[in-house]
């Protein structure tokens, strides 16, 4: 098989990373922020060429956590893949379940009862709250304030995980959603407890915001670093908070209007400069909007079945065909593309990983920045390796 010359250093085409020339004072240092590195949020590797402190070239290397999720999914039934979707983006397991369930419902033309839609919105927004709390906590950890600010983020996350555990049985791997609804009906006490926790959360967001806005060191380090122009962001397929921080108004909850998001009124925050500071303020503002959605959803959740009675769980065989379903996961547009040949197992099972595609422009953002800022820029993209390498 003829292999194309893969080591072509010359980049042509307008949207590829610009080559940054070293200023010739010192020699270049080839270093790899490798798989085992405290700042890479998991086993992610970047081969960085440094001219002193400035980054000249940055090539990410993936695959250290490639667990063959798609090959395994082709060998088992649709239902058996649901616990595997928990382990895709292992911080937000419920939104992964939701995206997969949505795609299979679109593939098989399955309806979902009212109450199940409300429960899905509640759990999805709770997952977004704990994911953004972690992302901001890890930013401050990457910046050097190691330990204490992360404890704030984890304190809220523990309460939300308790909610998940009482409802679904497991803290992190919920395996909760099915095609046509959810597995367990939340009890009134659970909803009451959820309301109490959601009522307490705005105080936490104020605490965190005070930590962020008043802190000169944080402002000095994050404003103006890792700028992402909006047109390059759209062309590079970047989605989620990173895209909205560059000022592009594209939130799937408003664009696709999937599930029942058109019933809640919430705003989509947008950034202006597209730098690291904007990406983190966006996450805090989205946290507030999620809390607004949660209050409305918890207030008017209807009764009724959680699972569509006509839904077939055992030997579920969707008709031949294909479907691409996507949702607004905390990290971006999480999509599932399924091709069915009528059998119990999917013929092709593809996950659209928002973290991997958001990393396409990591090199563009890091060129010319200091090495210490590369850590911040990577933290602001907020990747999870289970989803990047699948």
């Amino acid at each position: 098989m003829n292999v194309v010359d893969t080591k072509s250093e010359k980049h042509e085409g307008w949207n590829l990373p610009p080559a940054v020339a070293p200023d010739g004072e010192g020699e270049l240092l080839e270093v790899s922020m490798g798989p085992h590195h405290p700042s890479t949020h998991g086993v992610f590797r970047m081969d960085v060429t440094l001219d002193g402190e400035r980054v000249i070239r940055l090539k990410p290397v993936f695959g250290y956590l490639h667990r063959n999720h798609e090959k395994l999914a082709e060998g088992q039934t649709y239902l058996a893949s649901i616990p595997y979707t928990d382990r895709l983006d292992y911080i937000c397991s419920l939104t992964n379940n939701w995206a997969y369930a949505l795609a299979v419902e679109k593939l098989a033309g399955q309806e979902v009862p009212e109450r199940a839609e409300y429960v899905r919105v509640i759990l999805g927004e709770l997952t977004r709250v704990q994911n953004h709390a972690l992302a901001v906590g890890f930013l401050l950890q990457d910046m050097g304030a190691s330990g204490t600010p992360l404890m704030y983020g984890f304190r809220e996350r523990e309460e939300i995980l308790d909610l998940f555990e009482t409802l679904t049985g497991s803290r992190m791997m919920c395996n909760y959603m099915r095609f046509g609804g959810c597995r367990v009906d939340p009890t009134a006490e659970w909803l009451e407890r959820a309301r109490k926790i959601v009522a307490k959360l705005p105080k936490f967001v104020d605490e965190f915001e005070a930590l962020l806005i008043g802190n000169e060191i944080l402002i000095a380090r994050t404003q103006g670093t890792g700028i992402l122009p909006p047109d390059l962001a759209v062309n590079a397929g970047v989605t989620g908070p990173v895209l909205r921080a560059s000022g592009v108004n594209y939130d799937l909850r408003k664009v696709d209007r999937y599930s029942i998001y058109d019933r809640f009124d919430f705003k989509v925050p947008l950034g202006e400069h597209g730098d690291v500071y904007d990406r983190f303020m966006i996450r805090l503002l989205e946290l507030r909007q999620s809390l607004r959605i949660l209050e409305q959803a918890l207030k008017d959740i209807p009764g009724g079945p959680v699972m569509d009675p006509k839904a077939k769980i055992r030997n579920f065989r969707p008709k031949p065909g294909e479907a691409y379903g996507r949702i607004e996961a905390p990290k971006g547009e999480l999509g599932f593309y399924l091709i069915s040949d009528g059998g119990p197992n999917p013929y092709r099972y593809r996950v659209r990983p928002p973290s991997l595609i958001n990393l396409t422009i990591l090199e563009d953002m890091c060129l010319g920045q200091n090495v210490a800022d590369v850590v911040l820029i990577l933290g602001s993209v907020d990747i999870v390796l289970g989803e990047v390498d699948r």
Partner: protein
Amino acid sequence: MKTVEEIKAAIEAAVPGAGVEIVLNPGPAAQHSLRLAPESALAVATFLRDDADLALDHLSNVTGVDWPDKEIAEKVKVTRTVAKTVDGVEQQVEETVEETRKRVEPGCLEVVYHLFSVAKKHGPVVLRMRTENRSDRVELPSMTHIWRSADFQEREIFDLYGVVFKGHPDLRRLLMWDEFKDHPMRKDYVEPDDYEYEPTPHDHVLARAQEHQKKIEAAGNKE
């Protein structure tokens, strides 16, 4: 949002001689797709991105699909001249006989593109491209210069399926290590025999255990 037929018409109007055909999606999702000929794919893609009312500037998903060679048993009517004695006279008579003939339909590697529009906020336009066969002619044009988001996804398809994307700036293996030789996501990929001890092997695990044992004896008595 235009229907697939309107988009096909718009493409043929804008890009003369573009090989476009519609592939219907029988499932309830009804997301029909357009199959492009690889030669004119880049021109069509640039048109879809820069067109005023389509404005498909967000390539969301690039997927590789492996269609292996299929054996199709067909009922074929064959007329053969047969010598037959009809009321005592030797004659050549055509005779149509029902015959099932095994025909191997050559497989191919397919790449599916899902396009959305951030400007116009409208839904998926699905493009498909096929390679000639699965062994040596597996080249397809790369879309990285039109949509930058295809960069890593095409590298992943090159790694797991073996489709070579011409014009890709940095076509290396994305997920497996560089010395790896196979394309693991293909349907005919055989995993290495790193079978290890299973306390209670049963059906396919039992089969692997016995096969592993045979290999060890073969290796054993070879030394």
